[in-house]
């Protein structure tokens, strides 16, 4: 049961009676309003600053009331990744309740309370870390609550707690046949001291974790009742759509809105410095009004900007030294003694997110406050952005979060919130600002363009003894979380380029920060690794070819020190039938990664037609993501990540001409479709390691597998994405 189908804001106010036991107390219990038990917890890495400021900063909540289900407040948002199922599983496992007995609530915006320690304390859902951050503390929360409830029952019945057991929301005493529900025990339990270090179950005793539990958010999504941000309809809401300056940094010079105003249903035209919005009774009228506007733009400083200017700048930047991200051994010396050398330049393009739900945000701005409805990966930032744009204090801004029709990093930004408030300032009453698909693609914040120079030296046996890598591009973190950018480096931009799993003796990796003019950058599903794995795994394939060795065997020989990496590679190769003969112009390619704290190998089977068009026919994935919390969600996320990555590898490209994004809708920004989708097999390695991230891993790992397979099929090495089909045409 999920409460997010209706808009509501709930959370810490209800736990105000929770008493502070000690600064170090990780869990705290207290009485809920209405005589129940509240258990709050702080994730272990939550910022010390927040803790010091507030004395105790809870991060997530279990609430058990006298009547009704157990209520869990979710600090993470659901955008398709299944977190509203996997997170409750962690708590329910130890609490001994069924998933059918819990109800979920969205957390309200409050970065101090709900900050994600793995994202610099932001209240954010991203970087595939919800399960990673919650694995220990949420199970501990469930176990501690269960222990309190059992103690309360034992005390009431005057029996030994060890003689009682918890089961499906009840405490039972077998000898006497007594039983009590958690609700009946909650008020008593709230008054008991919180036990320390309640032991957690051994993985062999898990009843729920490791099972393919059904998703809790699905039924509403098959009958049209699920509420996304775009679906909210506060009474009297008007619909607005907009045209923003087609060149980033441009301004509105003049607007002729006579024809637009004459459109039936159009109510108002709002002119901003760099955008014009049409406000109407419905989106049909708003779009018709927008098409009727005659806007003259002052294109500003980027009026002549083309992508090739940005690329040339990156190319130049990689000729000069950058910040040293990693240095192992002595590359120069090793390179000098190498028997053979391989050099390459790799490039990946700007990419749009293209969430199926276009950007939108609904705002009702009054003199004394602002109400916002949306789907966001960053609730607290959304609230702050609205407050700033409305010039109101934070506590005057009420934010309702809804389901996200895709996030992929786009909804880690708040530009669409700011824009909606700017428009709402001119409107009496609530307004829903809905971007057209063209606006969504042309005013996205893009996955950066990156350009990489690599060289490697091989010894007489073909083994890589020296690995030199320098790359240039935008650092998203430098803008998004400036403290995370230190000495010219950030941990996201370099993930997948350093700490390589191959145990190479001499490596040197440098990064050069170059912020492109005239185009904003942002996180995109699989972030740094989306670029780095394509580069390292493409180049590793080149080394195997230079060494005249099989790409799988070549990698396996380097993996003795990383057995988890070796195991997934061997498993994927075996399941894919690596080495078995294939028809002409069909090839297999492999890619291996350690990213988001998970190990993954893909084998892609690709067919290249005579005209150069590429079809990915089959992908076999082996993954070791630690203890698999929900194997079906893991499979679904990997299937999803692979399709997302193939779309990018085959089609994804955002280019600028005269400062304008050249792509606009799904005809020019193509997405993989049903008739092109490969069969996908996912093999999950049983593991007792702590869980790793899974929502993005499938994406970063696939592009090199595809281009390596294209090489196997055609002998043509592609070092740039998306795939250039013209280069793959079969000579007549």
């Amino acid at each position, binding site marked *: 049961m999920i409460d997010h189908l209706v808009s509501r804001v709930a959370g810490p106010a209800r736990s105000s009676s929770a008493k502070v036991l000690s600064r170090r107390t990780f869990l705290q219990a207290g009485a809920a309003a209405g005589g129940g038990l509240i258990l709050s917890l702080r994730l272990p890495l939550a910022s010390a600053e927040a803790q010091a400021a507030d004395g105790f900063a809870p991060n997530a909540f279990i609430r058990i009331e006298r009547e009704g289900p157990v209520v869990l407040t979710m600090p993470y948002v659901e955008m398709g990744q299944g977190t509203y199922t996997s997170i409750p599983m962690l708590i329910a496992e130890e609490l001994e309740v069924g998933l059918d007995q819990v109800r979920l609530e969205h957390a309200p915006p409050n970065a101090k309370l709900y900050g994600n320690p793995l994202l610099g304390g932001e209240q954010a859902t991203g970087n595939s870390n919800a399960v990673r951050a919650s694995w220990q503390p949420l199970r501990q929360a469930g176990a501690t609550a269960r222990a309190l409830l059992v103690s309360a029952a034992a005390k009431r019945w005057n029996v030994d707690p060890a003689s009682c057991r918890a089961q499906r929301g009840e405490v039972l005493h077998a000898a006497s046949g007594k039983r009590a529900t958690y609700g009946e025990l909650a008020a008593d339990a709230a008054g008991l001291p919180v036990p320390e270090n309640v032991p957690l179950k051994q993985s062999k005793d898990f009843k729920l974790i490791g099972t393919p539990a059904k998703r809790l958010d699905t039924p509403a999504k098959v009958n049209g009742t699920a509420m996304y941000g775009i679906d909210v309809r506060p009474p009297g809401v008007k619909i607005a759509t907009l045209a923003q300056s087609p060149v980033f940094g441009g301004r509105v010079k003049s607007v002729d809105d006579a024809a637009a105003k004459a459109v039936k249903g159009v109510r108002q035209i709002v002119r901003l410095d760099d955008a014009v919005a049409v406000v109407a009774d419905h989106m049909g009228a708003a779009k*018709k009004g927008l098409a009727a506007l005659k806007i003259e733009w002052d294109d500003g400083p980027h009026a002549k900007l083309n992508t090739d200017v940005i690329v040339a700048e990156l190319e130049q930047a990689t000729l000069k030294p950058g910040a040293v991200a990693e240095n192992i051994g002595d590359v120069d010396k090793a390179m000098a003694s190498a028997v053979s050398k391989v050099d390459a330049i790799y490039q990946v393009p700007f990419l749009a997110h293209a969430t199926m739900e276009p950007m939108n945000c609904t705002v009702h701005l009054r003199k004394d406050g602002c109400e916002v409805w949306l789907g966001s990966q960053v609730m607290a930032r959304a609230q702050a952005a609205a407050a700033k744009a409305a010039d109101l204090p934070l506590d005057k801004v009420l934010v309702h979060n809804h389901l996200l029709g895709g996030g992929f990093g786009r909804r880690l930004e708040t530009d669409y919130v700011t824009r909606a408030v700017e428009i709402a300032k001119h409107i009496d009453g609530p307004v829903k600002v809905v971007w057209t698909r063209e606006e969504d693609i042309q005013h996205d914040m893009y996955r950066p363009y990156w350009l990489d120079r690599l060289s490697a030296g091989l010894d007489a046996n073909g083994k890589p003894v020296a690995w030199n890598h320098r790359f240039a591009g935008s650092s998203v973190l430098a803008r998004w979380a400036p403290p995370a950018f230190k000495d010219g480096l950030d941990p996201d931009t370099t993930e997948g380029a350093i700490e390589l799993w191959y145990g190479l003796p001499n490596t040197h990796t440098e990064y050069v920060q170059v912020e492109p003019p005239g185009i904003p950058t942002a996180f995109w599903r699989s972030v740094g690794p989306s670029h780095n794995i394509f580069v390292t795994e493409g180049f590793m394939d080149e080394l195997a070819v230079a060494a005249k060795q099989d790409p799988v065997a070549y990698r396996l020989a380097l993996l003795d020190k990383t057995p988890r990496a070796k195991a997934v590679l061997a498993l994927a190769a075996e399941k894919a039938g690596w080495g078995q003969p294939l028809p002409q112009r069909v090839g297999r390619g492999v890619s291996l990664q350690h990213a988001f704290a998970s190990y993954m190998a893909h084998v892609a089977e690709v067919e290249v037609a005579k005209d150069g068009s590429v079809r990915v026919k089959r992908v076999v994935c082996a993954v070791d993501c630690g203890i698999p919390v929900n194997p079906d969600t893991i499979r679904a996320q990997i299937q999803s990540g692979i399709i*997302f990555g193939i779309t990018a590898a085959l089609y994804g490209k955002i280019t600028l001409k005269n400062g304008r994004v050249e792509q606009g809708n799904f005809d020019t920004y193509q997405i993989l479709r049903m008739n092109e989708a490969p069969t996908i097999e996912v093999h999950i390695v049983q593991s007792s390691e702590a869980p790793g991230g899974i929502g993005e891993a499938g994406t970063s790992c696939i592009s090199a597998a595809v281009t390596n397979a294209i090489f196997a099929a055609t002998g043509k090495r592609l070092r740039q994405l998306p795939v250039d089909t013209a280069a793959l045409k079969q000579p007549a």
Partner: protein
Amino acid sequence: MTFAIQVNGNPHSVDVDGDTPLLWVLRDVLGMTGTKFGCGMALCGACTVHVDGVAVRSCITPIDSVGNSAITTIEAIGATPSGAKIQKAWLDREVVQCGYCQSGQIMSASALLASNPRPTDADIDDAMSGNICRCGTYGRIREAIKQAAQSSTQGG
């Protein structure tokens, strides 16, 4: 201008320009938000509804072309035999992720099943390739359609 239309068996009267796409009449005028906006150019299928049982893209269907036809949306598709089977199969196969495109996917799939109780892979490709899913649920959609088809066949 006023148009009298039939949606999910109920009569409605709406006062909009004749070229207003059905999508916005449903979502913004009638408040039926289950039908989604994705592209506005019939490129993604998120807005798919049935007009007299045929899957159409409501984002390019002008209201003055609809006339007295029976419009069916995701809100009522479960009341049709093929729609109910498709919805059940979608849940059984755990198809959905973010879910935003799934109204359109289900409308396309239920129209397919109603007209073709035993679709082949090629039939599924033909009927479903107009519906984009950014979460990449295509494999599960294919399995779910096959499951629903099998239950149709077994049910006679």
